[in-house]
């Protein structure tokens, strides 16, 4: 064996052990989510990072070496700053998220002659990349779908044969598979067997496209854990809306839990338990700071001890309920109280549930998760439009006011844009309201995809939308929204056998620091600019 071959062999060994090292780092990094992470855990983490920085470069991964060294230094700074921390909360969480992204730096530098030998993240079946894979042997339909997916900013790959997809699946796993497969008796049975077997073991979400629409086929798709089922001819916008929903469920943010209890040991235990279950946990030691804590931590739920020295849990709950804003915040009492009468009394004082200590781990996790899901659903129902998931009229107006207050204080520019679908009445009249709704949903989905996560989106009225773009001047807003406008007109909608496209008119109003214009006036100006766009030909953008 030559030197190069031997070197390559050792490199391969190292690359194979890398996923488990990165996994260990991720596991240890969980500690950074707690306000007072254990020193031992952080030291082990630092040790691993140090090793990684010292070794990765030797095996052709210099970017990983450099990043690991940088993260190790930041971690050491956090270790040094303790226990006088508190100010480092922000950096702690930032470091955590950077550590989570460490695998992105697994970029081979000097292995150009062996592209196949690069790091193989799919090996242990753990790492999912946010990608959509499409299996479609009808090339015309495949590329149409691919174009749409990419217009919506999805990272998508098209495969025309199952064998190709299988080969690629060895190296990486997409989050969602969209499969046009031959189900039931449609195709050769060996293919079907292979596909079912593959899907049983795959960790990706699945959406099926089928030429047939019968109960048998649908049942089979359900049996293969499909998240959605679409029949040809394919309604692409509908499929993309569904895809968004699937991804949203995958990416629900962690539950934010606030624990109020004086038993330190128990608190630490709950904190670890819930953190391990993927939640973000905060602890309140000083009940008198409840208002600041709620404002700062924005918990989804409160776990509160009923009997604490100096303060009664019931009274603290009652204080929380004095604020309108937190009327709907779920509160669960934890208590050793066994008297049912007193339990009921406590529930009457504004709490949602009552768990008797000792609580089993599973019970606690399930109680918290289910309560948070429900309360988020209710909150969404109150503030979000059911068709598009965007903020309702009142909520988006509130968002403009909030952004205005913030921009004024900070002396930053921001923009408000008004968007209106052109000739929307004609779409409704010609194709029916169901198709009209689809066009509206597509505006929402495309906005979400093309704009920044910090931009706030709302459905202002029937076919009218408002976008609030923070820290953004008019030119930048115009560039982003005009790109959106052009992409929107390229979308194809189908109504029966007929295909059509739609256009949009946009007006932008800018808030410049130092000016006297208020939130209300910004909305009026954006509206005026939008009407100017309508008057002067539609499908265009006007700066107010």
């Amino acid at each position, binding site marked *: 064996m030559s030197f190069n071959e031997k070197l390559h062999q*050792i490199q391969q060994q190292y690359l194979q052990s890398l996923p488990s090292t990165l996994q260990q780092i991720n596991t240890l990094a969980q500690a950074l989510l707690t306000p007072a992470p254990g020193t031992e855990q952080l030291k082990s983490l630092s040790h691993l990072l140090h090793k990684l920085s010292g070794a990765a470069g030797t095996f052709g991964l210099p970017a990983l070496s450099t990043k690991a060294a940088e993260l190790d230094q930041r971690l050491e700074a956090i270790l040094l700053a303790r226990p006088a921390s508190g100010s480092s909360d922000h950096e702690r969480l930032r470091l955590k998220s950077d550590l989570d992204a460490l695998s992105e730096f697994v970029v081979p530098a000097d292995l150009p002659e062996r592209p196949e030998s690069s790091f193989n993240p799919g090996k242990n079946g753990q790492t999912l990349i946010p990608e959509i894979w499409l299996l479609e042997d009808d090339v015309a339909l495949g590329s149409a779908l691919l174009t749409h997916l990419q217009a919506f900013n999805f990272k998508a790959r098209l495969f025309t044969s199952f064998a190709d997809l299988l080969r690629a699946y060895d190296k990486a796993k997409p989050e969602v598979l969209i499969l046009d497969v031959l189900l039931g008796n449609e195709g050769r049975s060996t293919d079907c067997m292979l596909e079912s077997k593959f899907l049983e073991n795959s960790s990706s979400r699945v959406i099926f496209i089928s030429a047939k629409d019968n109960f048998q086929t649908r049942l089979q798709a359900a049996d293969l854990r499909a998240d959605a089922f679409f029949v040809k001819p394919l309604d692409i916008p509908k499929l993309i809306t569904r895809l968004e929903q699937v991804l949203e469920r995958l990416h629900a943010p962690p539950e934010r839990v606030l624990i109020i209890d004086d038993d330190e040991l128990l608190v630490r235990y709950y904190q670890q338990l819930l953190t391990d279950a993927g939640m973000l946990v905060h602890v309140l030691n000083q009940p008198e700071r409840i208002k600041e804590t709620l404002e700062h931590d924005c918990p989804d739920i409160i776990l509160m001890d009923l009997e604490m020295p100096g303060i009664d849990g019931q009274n603290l709950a009652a204080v929380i309920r004095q604020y309108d804003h937190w009327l709907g915040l779920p509160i669960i009492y934890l208590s050793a109280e066994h008297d049912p009468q007193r339990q009921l009394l406590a529930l009457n004082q504004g709490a949602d549930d009552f768990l008797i200590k000792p609580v089993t781990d599973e019970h606690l996790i399930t109680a918290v998760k289910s309560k948070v899901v429900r309360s988020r659903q209710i909150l969404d129902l109150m503030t979000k439009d059911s068709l598009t998931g965007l903020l309702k009229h009142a909520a988006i107006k509130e968002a403009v006011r909030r952004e205005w207050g913030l921009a004024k204080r900070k002396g930053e520019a921001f923009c408000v844009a008004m968007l209106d679908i052109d000739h929307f009445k004609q779409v409704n009249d010609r194709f029916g309201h169901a198709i009209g709704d689809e066009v509206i949903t597509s505006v929402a989905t495309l906005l979400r995809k093309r704009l920044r996560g910090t931009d706030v989106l709302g459905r202002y009225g029937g076919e009218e939308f408002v976008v609030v773009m923070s820290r953004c001047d008019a030119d930048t807003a115009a560039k982003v929204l005009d790109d959106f406008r052009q992409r929107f007109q390229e979308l194809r909608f189908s109504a029966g056998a007929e295909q059509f496209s739609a256009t949009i008119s946009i007006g932008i109003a800018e808030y410049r620091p130092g000016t006297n214009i208020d939130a209300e006036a910004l909305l009026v100006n954006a509206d005026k600019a939008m009407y100017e766009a309508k008057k002067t030909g539609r499908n265009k953008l006007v700066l107010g």
Partner: protein
Amino acid sequence: MNELVRVMYVEDEPDIRAVAKLALEVVGGLTVELCEQGDRAVAQAENFGPQMILLDVMMPGMDGPSTLKALRERPLLQNIPVAFMTAKVQPHEIEHFKSLGAVGVIAKPFDPMTLSQQVRDLWKKTEVAS
């Protein structure tokens, strides 16, 4: 001037050991003895008789600096040049390692193609000094 032939490398990571051995033997033409932990280094060094010793700094159990100390306590090993292999190569860190009695520091991650040259350069410096 003596030719450098025999080198011992103490390192806990198996992949790094393997690549260093390959680099020093094949590229550098050296005879290499590997050792996986600090507390075995003394016995192995007395046995092997290296002209130079390379020490990883961060190892579980006995780390690099403690291993250096243990080596220095043995009459046979007292004068053998030792270099640290580490990712900590800030000037003050290098100074610290030298103050412990190391002849120098080789930065990690190392390049397998040039490692033996770096080791030889350090070796020449000690030869000139003595």
